[in-house]
């Protein structure tokens, strides 16, 4: 979360109704100004994200990079200034979901004009302006059934199952052009929808990509760190261009102390440091097959005209109806004429 000032910058006590009104208009228009008014000072990269008008944002951030401000701040702002809206925060585990709701409540508590809550639980907050903020554990069953959200934030998106995103979350965007979707995470291997959103060439047109990294890279031998000049804008622009980061390439303000980072490197090793702080999609150490081997298996596969006829003879739907991924795969098989 961004740093908090000792007193709220925009204290409303003693202001005239006109001043309050104009301030509220400014806050409704600018999420950054609203967050500032609560006493938090967003970092530069956070400003870029929260002020962006893009409806699809993917943020790859280093550990302790300030992701929570985004996760909690944007749904809070949406709930306050868009009455009757539904804001959803998805998290891979229940603990994470509860933590996220805790951060939302911190923001709400700092805003003296925040709508009062009608219902307030660990996972759901209903406001008197009709808005709802809900945190949801990202499971195939739990994530279903929400309709027409105005804001979707997927926290630790790299840890969320593809099937949840594809079959439960993604359909919520149908006929919902106003919905803003934000994926935010540290990397977790070259797999899943978050990795595709950040790295696949075709995804660059859909997602506004941001990358927030520590200003250090491990040396080749993995025993030391090399510092990158944090105000080298040319370097940042070049990296953003190279990696097709339409939102920009930034350095995490909280990862600037060399001694701290060196300690991290020594404790977690260069591979994990590259993943957690340099935000690289590296191979997990315990992975049995390498990315290269797996890619090779798929790229060398030929189109084989063969067994489609025999497959047609089989009723691929299970006798008792089937469910879950199998059912979907079967449907896909049938669609493909198999």
């Amino acid at each position, binding site marked *: 979360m961004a740093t908090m000032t000792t007193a709220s910058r925009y204290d409303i006590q003693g202001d005239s109704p006109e001043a309050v009104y104009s301030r509220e208009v400014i806050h409704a228009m600018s999420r950054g100004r609203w967050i500032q008014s609560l006493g938090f000072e967003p970092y530069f990269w956070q400003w870029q994200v929260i002020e962006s008008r893009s409806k699809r944002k993917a943020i790859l951030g280093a550990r302790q990079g300030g992701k929570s401000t985004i996760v909690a701040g944007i749904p809070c702002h949406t709930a306050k200034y868009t009455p009757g809206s539904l804001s959803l925060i998805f998290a891979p585990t229940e603990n994470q979901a509860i933590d996220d709701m805790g951060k939302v409540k911190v923001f709400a508590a700092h805003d003296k004009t925040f709508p009062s809550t009608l219902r307030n639980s660990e996972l759901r907050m209903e406001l008197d302006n009709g808005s709802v903020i809900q945190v949801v554990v990202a499971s195939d069953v739990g994530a279903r059934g929400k309709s027409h959200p105005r804001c979707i934030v997927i926290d630790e998106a790299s840890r969320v199952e593809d099937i949840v995103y594809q079959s439960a979350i993604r359909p919520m965007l149908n006929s919902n052009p106003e919905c803003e979707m934000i994926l935010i995470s540290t990397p977790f291997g070259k797999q899943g929808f978050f990795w595709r959103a950040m790295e696949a060439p075709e995804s660059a047109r859909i997602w506004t990509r941001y990358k927030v990294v520590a200003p250090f890279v491990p040396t080749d031998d993995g025993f030391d760190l090399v510092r990158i000049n944090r105000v080298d804008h040319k370097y940042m622009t070049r990296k953003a261009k190279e990696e097709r980061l339409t939102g920009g390439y930034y350095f995490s303000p909280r990862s600037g102390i060399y001694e701290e980072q060196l300690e991290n490197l020594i404790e977690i090793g260069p591979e994990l440091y590259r993943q957690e702080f340099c935000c690289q999609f590296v191979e997990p150490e315990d992975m*049995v097959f390498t990315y290269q081997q797996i890619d090779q*298996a*798929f790229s060398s596969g030929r189109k*084989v005209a063969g067994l489609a006829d025999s497959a047609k003879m089989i009723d691929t739907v299970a*006798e008792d109806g089937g469910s879950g*991924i*199998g059912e979907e795969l*079967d449907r896909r098989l049938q669609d493909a004429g198999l």
Partner: protein
Amino acid sequence: MQDFDQQAGQGRVLLFPRQGGQKAAEYRPVDVTSPAITEYVVVCDLAKDQDAAIIQIYHITPELVPGVKELNRPDRVIRYADLVYCRKTTKESYTHFVASLCTLCSDPKILGKYTLLTDVTGVGAAVVEMMQQQGLAPIPISFSSGSGWRPVYSVASGFGGGGSSRAFGSRLAQLDKIVVSKEEMTSAAIIIMQQQRLRISRSLPQILQDDIRKQLLKFTGKVNERTKKVAYENLTDQDHDDQVVCILMLAFWLVRYVPSMGEVNDHAVERDNAIPWGIGEEGVMERGRTVKAGWSDPHAFV
């Protein structure tokens, strides 16, 4: 040439190569009715708990790879495993599953040219019996902990002789199952992946390709800090490894089991005019070569 004791089993005949002074119990049976490497390998993983039931069909494609003259290495035939068909269902009854498997295996393209491997870990013999009743001859594979693998044969008297007699045709030997550790299968799979012999057909539906890719990515070997042994499993409980299990079985079959049964060194040479299936296919013919030279060379196969 080796001398053989011929044994007949249920649905297959096994030959026990006899060597001078060797006891009958030490003979290693060689299955001759079902060629060890067939044109197709059908691998199925039966549904257990929340897992899905999988049927994968691989086409074993031999291709000639030119040798290196400078190093005095001959041309070699490499057998690639092309995954050409995959089927995945959940909550399917075993009866329906076996019926589907039977329909697939009776396809003219693969009928009589396939080996059927099935994972029976935690399922029991009932499903295998169901398959046998439908005329299938599955080779059950049971996963175990630890390391290594062993075939389990049931031996009974038959052809008018005692179970332990060395007389010709005196024993019924049937391969009950192969008990394999996951470590053994994984090491075979690593070899086959490193040799780039597994090829996933692009004809498969995209969702199945994605499923296989995801499972391969999430298949991990975690070191138990206490025992220092590696446990091979999916990354989290939510991740399934049913597709990977099928790949492991295929890899074990190709890399470990078949070579140990002497298919390459004995069988191929015995059938002097044998030309491996697959010759005449695009990959081989394009090079304008014959596979025969490689076929008769026991060290020419991978």
